[in-house]
């Protein structure tokens, strides 16, 4: 009797958490910015940790709690790495946009390198360079 009550309680909790995971996935797909997606992924990690903890009592397997602990650490690490990566991507894009001088400089260097390589390859290009 009491075992059945525990069974239905844990089963209902797991079903509810599954529904919440689906809603969070929808938010992570719809989210307009990158930080909305990271928030949704962080929330999915939290819900999955609860799900694993409930599953460990539902199946009466104690090693699943260790899985839960490790999952918490990896989830935290993934959020930190995602934030670092997207901060770096944003800064790189902004610097590329801001520093037009450096872009022109790079293009000039590339043109010079191409001319030098072509001059080494073909003798006619050397004459052109001499004319210049």
């Amino acid at each position: 009797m009491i075992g059945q009550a525990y069974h239905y309680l844990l089963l209902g909790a797991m079903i509810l958490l599954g529904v919440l995971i689906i809603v969070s996935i929808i938010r992570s797909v719809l989210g307009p910015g990158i930080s909305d997606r990271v928030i949704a992924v962080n929330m999915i990690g939290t819900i999955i940790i609860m799900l694993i903890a409930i599953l460990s009592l539902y199946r009466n397997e104690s090693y699943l709690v260790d899985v839960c602990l490790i999952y918490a650490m990896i989830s935290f690490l993934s959020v930190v790495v995602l934030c670092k990566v997207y901060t770096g991507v944003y800064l790189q894009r902004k610097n590329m946009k801001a520093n037009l001088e450096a872009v022109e400089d790079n293009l000039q260097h590339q043109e010079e390198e191409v001319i030098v390589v072509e001059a080494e390859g073909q003798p006619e290009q050397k004459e052109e360079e001499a004319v210049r």
Partner: protein
Amino acid sequence: MTGGWIRFLAAAGLLLLGLFFEVLAVFGANRFKKALNRIHAAAMGDTLGILFVSLGLMVMRGFSMDSLKLFLVILFFWLASPVSGHMIARLEAMTNQNLGEIAVIRMEKEDREKAAGSGRPGGGDESLPDAAETGPEEKGKSGSGKGRKGAEK
């Protein structure tokens, strides 16, 4: 028998309270419009949700090694969740250019304008460009200025 039922009721109450907080967190994250508000909603699920769910499972399990591990999960989450929330908020504040004016920054700017107005009347605007004032327009100006210099060369 009644002791078992009391324990079941306590565990069920704590578990359902935790699930209620998690539902609120997911609802808030879907309902709010800005990312910083969403962090506010999601942090509630990270702290209170996992606290009450783990407490319910600990009551259900009794004194054992599993309860200690669940307690460690709570401890780790309460240490890690503010850090991750702070990093997400910093990412949002750095990348979102039309974030709007945050109240603290506006207060500092008003204070600074007041100080500048008392020191030099009329020169408050261009005295100190801070992070709140240098929006996308300012950055665009500096970028095009560099571009102009390159073109003049």
